[in-house]
C-alpha cells in the first residue's frame, strides 16, 4: 500500500473541501478501496475519512411515502431495516446476495455505487488497463474475459460494474444526492455511472470533491413491493459476483401488466435498465411467452466482447425467470439463499 495522508473531517463541508484537491479519495468502510490499494491499483495521496460525518447514517421515511438512505448506512443494516425491506424487497434481496456477511456489515450504500469493476486487469498494475491508466490499452480484450460486458462496451474497455444493490435501484428509479464544492445536486442513478466509450477512466458523473450523501427512493417504487424480485446467477451459490443478474418489479391490474421495471447486472459498465423489455410488457397479460419476448428485447443489442457469448443467453433466461419469480409474488420471509436460482421453497407471498 502506498503512503498517504489521513484526514477525519467533522462536517460534510469540511470533507468536500479536503477532498477537492488532486489525489484525494473518500474513505468509508474501505472494503473495495483498501483492497485496490493493497494491489497498487489505487494510490491516493490523501484519504478523507467520512465514517464520522453527522447525518449520513440514517434511514428515513419521507413525507411523500418514499425513503431516503444516508450514504453511510451499512448494507446489512439497510437490508434488515423492516420499513425499507418491506417497501423495497428486491433491493433488500440484492443486498443480501452480495459479498459476505462480514463485508455487508462494513460496506456502505454510497460506497456500493462507488465500487470499481472486479476486472482482474484493472486490479493488476502490471496489466494494461485504460480504466485504471488511460491510454495503456485493454488486456482484457484478448485475455480472460468470459465474465466481461455484453452491452455498452467499447474497444477501450469491456469491464462490468459489479454491484447487486444498484440493479434493483436503477429499475426503481433511485436518485443520488450529491454534495460538492458547487453545492448540492442530484442525479438519477440511471445517469450516474458512465459507459466506457473512449474514456473508461471516467466511471461516473462525480466531479472532484463531490460526495454522495444519500439515495432516495420514491413512493411509486414502493407500490411495486408485492411483485418484486432479484435473481443472481454466479459460479458458486454464495459469496461470488454475478455473471449476470436481473431485477424485476411488476404491477398487475385486471389481468394485465400496468407497470413493469426490469434491470440487469453484470452485463455492462453500469447497472443496465432494460427499458425495451419494459415497453414489451406494458399492458399485456403476464405470461411466460410475454416474459421471453421481453427478455429478447432486453438483450437485442447485446454483443459478446470475448469468450462470453453465453452471457447473452444466460441474461435472457435470467430476465424471463426473474419476471416469473416477481409474478409469483414477493416472499414473506427473505429466502435462505437470497436471489439464488437454487433457493428452496420461499413460502407464502408477503403482500398477497
Amino acid at each position, binding site marked *: 500500500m502506498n*503512503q498517504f495522508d489521513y484526514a477525519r473531517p467533522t462536517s460534510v463541508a469540511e470533507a468536500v473541501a479536503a477532498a477537492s484537491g488532486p489525489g484525494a479519495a473518500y474513505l468509508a468502510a474501505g*472494503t473495495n478501496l483498501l483492497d485496490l490499494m493493497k494491489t497498487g491499483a489505487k494510490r491516493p495521496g490523501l484519504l478523507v475519512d467520512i465514517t464520522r460525518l453527522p447525518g449520513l447514517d440514517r434511514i428515513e421515511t419521507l413525507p411523500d411515502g418514499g425513503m431516503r438512505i444516508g450514504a453511510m448506512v451499512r448494507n446489512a443494516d439497510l437490508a434488515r431495516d423492516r420499513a425499507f425491506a418491506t417497501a423495497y424487497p428486491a433491493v433488500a434481496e440484492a443486498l443480501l446476495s452480495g459479498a*459476505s456477511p462480514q463485508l455487508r456489515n*462494513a460496506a456502505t450504500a454510497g460506497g456500493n455505487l462507488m465500487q470499481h469493476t472486479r476486472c482482474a486487469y484493472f486490479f493488476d498494475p502490471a496489466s494494461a488497463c485504460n480504466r485504471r491508466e488511460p491510454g495503456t490499452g485493454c488486456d482484457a480484450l484478448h485475455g480472460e474475459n468470459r465474465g466481461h460486458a455484453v452491452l455498452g462496451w467499447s474497444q477501450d474497455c469491456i469491464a462490468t460494474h459489479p454491484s447487486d444493490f444498484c440493479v434493483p435501484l436503477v429499475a426503481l428509479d433511485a436518485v443520488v444526492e450529491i454534495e460538492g464544492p458547487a453545492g448540492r445536486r442530484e442525479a438519477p442513478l440511471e445517469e450516474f455511472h458512465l459507459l466506457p466509450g473512449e474514456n473508461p477512466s471516467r466511471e461516473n458523473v462525480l466531479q472532484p470533491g463531490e460526495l454522495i450523501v444519500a439515495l432516495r427512493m420514491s413512493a411509486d417504487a414502493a407500490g411495486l413491493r408485492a411483485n418484486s424480485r432479484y435473481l443472481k446467477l454466479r459460479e458458486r451459490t*454464495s459469496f461470488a459476483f454475478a455473471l449476470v443478474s436481473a431485477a424485476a418489479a411488476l404491477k398487475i391490474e385486471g389481468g394485465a401488466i400496468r407497470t413493469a421495471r426490469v434491470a440487469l447486472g453484470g452485463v455492462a459498465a453500469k447497472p443496465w435498465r432494460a427499458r425495451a423489455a419494459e415497453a414489451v410488457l406494458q399492458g399485456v397479460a403476464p405470461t411466460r411467452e410475454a416474459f421471453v419476448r421481453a427478455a429478447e428485447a432486453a438483450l437485442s443489442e447485446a454483443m459478446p466482447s470475448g469468450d462470453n457469448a453465453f452471457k447473452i443467453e444466460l441474461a435472457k433466461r435470467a430476465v424471463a425467470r426473474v419476471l416469473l419469480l416477481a409474478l409469483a409474488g414477493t416472499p414473506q420471509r427473505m429466502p*435462505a439463499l437470497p436471489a439464488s436460482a437454487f433457493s428452496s421453497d420461499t413460502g407464502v407471498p408477503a403482500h398477497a
Partner: protein
Amino acid sequence: MTLSISLTINGDLKSVLLDDPRVTLLDLLRERLDLTGTKKGCDRGQCGACTVLVDGRRINACLSLAISLDGAEVLTIEGLAEGERLHPVQAAFIAHDGFQCGFCTPGQIMSALGLLGEGEADDPERIREGMSGNLCRCGAYAGITEAVLDAHKRVAEEAAEHRRVA
C-alpha cells in the same frame, strides 16, 4: 505523522499510537498488540480468517484501517473464554468437530458469534449462507454447520435459563 487512537479490546481500554495510517486492524492486533489468535489468510476480505467483532458486528479486520476505528470496541477470539470456561460457540465447535487444522477456526467462531447476534442461524441452509464469508480449506463445513446450529440452541437455552432466574 503520529496518530493516537483509543480502542476497547476484549474489554480493556487501550491507547494506541500509530506511526503509520496504513495499519489495518488485523496488523494492529497481530503485530503490535500480540493478539495472534486472529489469523491472516488472504488479507483481501475473501477468506474470513481475520473475522472479529467491532461494536458487536463481525467484519474482516484485514479490510479495516485501525485509524478509522478510533473509539470502537473490538472483540477477538482471545476475549471469548472466561478462564478455563469456553464460550458456548467454542464448546460447540469442539463437540461437533468443526475444524481440522484449526487455522480458520478463530475466524469461524467469531463469524458464528456474529451470525447468532444477527438472528439468522435457525436452519442449516441459513447457517451455510450466513457462514459463506469463512473458507475452510480442510472442508470441515458439515461440522461447522452442526456446531453453529448447536451453539444457536445452547445460547437460546442459556438466555431462557437467564430469564427464568431473573
